[in-house]
């Protein structure tokens, strides 16, 4: 009897423990639903996750302005926005997609650029077809097709990004460089002049390895794509290889800048923030970067000087310079979203050129707009932008046509060159080709 009672109690203890566990398991997250208001109009919460960082000063478009204005226009729609840095974003969005828990609206990159790209995600059936939305005809042809796969539009870009060379006009004038270098020879001479005057010609943030792409793609635009715009298609069909002369040439030209000391030594120890710091402090005359970095590169540093921006001239004398200009990342819609109608309502309002939200977006958007009829808002880019508009000599950022991972190999192997290893430019090209062959299956 005594024994029995005790046994009872211990079994009870066990059951309680089990119950505690199951209560915990099922109790978790039971609060997700309950958005249906009892009245007539349906209250909807839309979720949106993007990459990037919060604006430190003033209003952030995606985090502050967008949700507020959407809610004012559609009182029944609440938009919840979250921002994460690129790498964290990529991990997060992939895991969420794999689990079927993706947000309604999220960040995508054009073509095959980055890990969450239009082509990869649309192939997997994760993206909703946006082709029929009324504002599509207002987006420039190129930007639309970069966000498409198999003739269907899956994303809306933030705008257009250019790679280029930011330069310190005061330092250029000081050493007697009177005009923007127009070809490779002139560029090298300008660097030499700066170096002779004791000025560091170029600083880069190669510790963040993607910076290597900033220079390499501008040079490749001239050596590879100026002669053959379809190089990457031929690469995919196996007709061309990275080891062909043209890519090796681009890499060799880039290597030359490091060998001659034009690009500061030690760049492998500098991250992006430190490199831009040196530029705005007036410690280096140039930096290769994109238009997205406008706020940092124009911030007030230790020195006050005038900035300029020109495409890195990788061309032969007499040839036109080719630029690396690309459709920027943008937004896509989850194909499995439970509120597709509401999402489309929001997009139609947002991208309607006559809406107040659109005007606000244009005002706060650092990228050059891909919408027809929106003027350029930063004078710094006027030179490059007019060149791009008039000549049309431009190519997308090369990695957008490669499986994600090839650019990574470029960074790793070219990093070895910067670090003074015995790696040759041919080694870099063949490593890129090997990685391409490994990843290009489909």
């Amino acid at each position, binding site marked *: 009897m*005594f024994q029995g009672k*005790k046994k009872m*109690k*211990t079994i009870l*203890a066990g059951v309680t423990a089990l119950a*505690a566990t199951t209560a*915990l*398991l099922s*109790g*978790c*997250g*039971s*609060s*997700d639903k309950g958005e249906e208001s009892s009245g007539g109009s349906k209250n909807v*919460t839309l*979720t949106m*996750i993007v*990459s*990037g*960082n*919060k604006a*430190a*000063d003033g209003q*952030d478009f995606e*985090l502050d302005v967008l949700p507020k204005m959407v809610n004012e226009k559609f009182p029944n729609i609440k938009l*919840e*926005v*979250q*921002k*994460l*840095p*690129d*790498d*964290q974003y990529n*991990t*997060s969005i*992939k*895991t*969420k997609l*794999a*689990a*079927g*828990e993706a*947000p309604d609206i999220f960040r995508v990159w054009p073509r095959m650029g980055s890990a969450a790209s239009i082509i990869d995600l649309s192939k997997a059936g994760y993206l909703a077809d946006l082709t029929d939305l009324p504002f599509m005809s207002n987006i420039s042809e190129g930007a639309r097709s970069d966000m498409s796969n198999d003739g269907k539009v899956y994303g809306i870009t933030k705008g257009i*990004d250019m790679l280029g060379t930011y330069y310190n006009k005061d330092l250029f004038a000081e050493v007697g460089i009177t005009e923007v270098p127009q070809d490779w020879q002139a560029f090298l001479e300008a660097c030499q002049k700066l170096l002779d005057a004791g000025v560091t010609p170029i600083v880069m943030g190669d510790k*963040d390895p*993607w910076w290597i792409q900033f220079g390499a793609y501008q040079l490749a635009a001239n050596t590879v794509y100026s002669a053959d715009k379809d190089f990457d298609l031929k690469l995919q069909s196996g007709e061309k290889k990275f080891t062909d002369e043209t890519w090796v040439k681009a890499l060799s030209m880039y290597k030359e800048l490091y060998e001659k000391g034009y690009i500061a030594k030690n760049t492998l120890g500098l991250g*992006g*923030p430190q490199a831009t710091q040196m530029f*705005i*402090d007036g410690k280096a005359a140039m930096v290769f970067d*994109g238009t997205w*970095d406008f706020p*940092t590169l124009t*911030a*007030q*540093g*230790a020195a006050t000087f005038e900035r300029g921006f020109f495409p890195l001239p990788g061309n032969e004398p007499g040839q036109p310079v080719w630029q690396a200009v690309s459709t*920027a*990342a943008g937004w896509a819609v989850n194909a499995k979203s439970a509120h597709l109608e509401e999402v489309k309502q929001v997009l139609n309002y947002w991208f309607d050129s006559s809406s107040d939200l659109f005007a606000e977006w244009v005002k706060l958007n650092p990228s050059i707009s891909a919408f027809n009829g929106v003027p350029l808002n930063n004078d710094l880019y006027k030179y490059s932008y007019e060149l791009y508009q008039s000549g049309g000599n431009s190519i997308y950022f090369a990695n957008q046509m490669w499986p994600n991972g090839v650019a990574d190999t470029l960074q790793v192997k070219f990093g070895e060159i910067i670090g003074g290893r015995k790696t040759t430019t041919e080694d870099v090209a063949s490593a890129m080709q090997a990685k391409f062959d490994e990843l290009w299956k489909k």
Partner: protein
Amino acid sequence: MNGGIAKKTLTHIGISFVLLLNILPLLIALSSSFRSVSNMTNPLQLFSEFSLESYRVAFDKMHFMQALGNSLMLTVISVVVVVLFTSMAAYPIARINNRLSKALYLFFLCGLVVPSQMVIIPIVQTIQGLHIPSSQYTPILMFITCSIPFSSFLYTGFIKSSIPIEVEESALIDGAGLMRRFWQIVFPLLLPVTVSVVITQGVWIWNDYFFNMIFISRAAESPLPLAMLGFMGDQTNPTAWNVLFAACFLCALPLLVMFAFLQKYFIGGLTVGSVKG
């Protein structure tokens, strides 16, 4: 006696120097956090300016109070459950000396070597398969799970070394059941090691952004580290580092306060707990 005082002063100077060196990198961050947002000159120019603007921006943009509330909720629930579950689990493992106990002990300990970044996709699929919705509370499951190995290790060592079976004897004679013996007699005696568990697990759960990032999709539900992540730059975005540092100190402040109060118990808990074990 004078020599004694001199020696003591020297010791103090020595220790202060070593510790100053230790927190020097944090001083850089602290000084940057006291700058105005637009002051982007080199952060190594220490304390060139004193402004609380960065704190104000960080406070607003992170929705600090809301995020703090979320952080507290996540951490407190997780830590309470960890303490309950693992102290319970450790009890039989420590008390019963047989193969099963040993196997369980090692089995739990093994979990320590597996990094969560790697297993995240299967984890999320498992949670999905169990039809547990992805919400503000989902990370708690993983916080608890990942805390099990180390906490049960601490508890087992402590019970084995410091809670002799004799303390339960009178209760046994009275015929007290397992539940009463554990909750009324053993559990209160575990206080020192409980403090250690609370600090060691509380700190990582408080700072973790990984599981939060995977499961939480709404800004209003974000805890502090996730809200802070928004100030980090990336490939196409500059880092707002004055604000980031301010955010970081705001985020660590509650921990600092907690540690300052609990450090005495903390070290004590480890003393009798793991170390004697």
